[in-house]
């Protein structure tokens, strides 16, 4: 029987394999929206899925280095910040080596550590991550819409504005979803019980 974890691992690998296919890669990278808001998140997702198939022994070995999920979270933050720099996007288009680094680092240094850290992050930690995400999306969206210059030399101004609008919509969408969840969806006690269940599941 296939363990759910290993199935996710295969799904993650397949997703990575699909994203590497040249025509899809070039298609997504031909626009800033495809590059920033589709390819990069999917690469992170591939890592998140792959993280699901890590053997329990590896998780146990890593957990003393990753109490409260902090180390993994910091690693993911650094990786994501690097790939959010406009010049990193330009570099990935100009240099094969940078492109390779992107395809390796986003799954392994952002997605996978996020998967490992998330279950051990406390309620407040998760809240901080979500609120930071909404704030960053909104600020970046506004910046991209208002920037007097093209931030990427390899993409059109119209493309940049499209990314700006998409980021603002995402910020709004995530913000509304979080608010609804916080106030409507699950009773706090039920949520706490669910949280404990998942902690047990991770063997922590």
């Amino acid at each position, binding site marked *: 029987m296939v363990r759910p974890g290993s199935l996710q691992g295969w799904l993650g690998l397949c997703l990575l394999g699909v994203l590497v296919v040249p025509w899809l890669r070039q298609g997504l990278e031909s626009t800033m929206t495809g590059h920033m808001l589709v390819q990069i998140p999917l690469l992170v997702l591939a890592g998140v899925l792959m993280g699901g198939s890590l053997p329990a022994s590896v998780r146990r070995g890593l957990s003393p280095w990753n109490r409260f999920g902090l*180390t993994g979270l910091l690693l993911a933050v650094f990786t994501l910040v*690097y790939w959010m720099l406009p010049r990193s996007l330009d570099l990935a288009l100009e240099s094969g080596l940078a492109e390779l680094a992107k395809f390796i680092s986003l799954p392994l240094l952002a997605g996978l550590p996020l998967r490992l850290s998330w279950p051990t992050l406390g309620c407040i930690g998760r809240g901080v991550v979500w609120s930071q995400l909404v704030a960053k999306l909104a600020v970046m969206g506004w910046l991209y819409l208002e920037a007097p210059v093209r931030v990427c030399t390899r993409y059109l101004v119209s493309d940049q504005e499209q990314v700006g609008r998409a980021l603002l919509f995402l910020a709004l969408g995530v913000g509304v979803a979080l608010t609804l969840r916080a106030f409507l969806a699950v009773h706090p006690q039920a949520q706490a019980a669910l949280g404990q269940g998942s902690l047990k599941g991770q063997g922590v």
Partner: protein
Amino acid sequence: MRTLIALCLLGALGVGLLHAATDGFRALTSETARRLAVAAEARPVPDVGVRDQSGAVLSLGETDGRLRVVNFIYTRCPDVCLALGDALQQLQRDLPAERLGRDVLLLSISFDPAHDSPERMAAYARWFRAGEGWRVLRPEDAEGLDALLETFGVVVIPDGQGGFEHNAALHLVDREGRLVHITDLEDVAGMRARLEGLW
């Protein structure tokens, strides 16, 4: 404890990486990065064959011995190249007449040789009332154009409507033919001050 050690190491490594990737947190875009790179180390400009607005063929190296303010344009450009033209026009007006042509040349280099015939380049020059010290050039072949764009760090991408988008700036090439400074096209006063420091 081990988490704390990991966090400290990772923090130092991550900050170091971001520091290196942004030239010390100074350049978040490749445009700023190319300006810093040129300021740190002058780049020899390749001596490529060009044609000017009168149809005469020359090599870029023939303009050595003078300071050159260079911008990259295409004559059909409806927006940013007009601003670039305005910037050179203002420099032409502000610089002492005896310096223009003798100590300083203004060069508008077209990256659209397929459309920019000498006639079109001449019309562009007339539009901006370009005098003796301002020449409109286009590289004679694709290799020359690519070499120039590569050296100057100018990226030209089709805008999907028959035109182009490109990074716009004023570039200063010294008497020895080295690219030494890049600045905003609005920074005409700064470019003038730099020229005065060099002549």
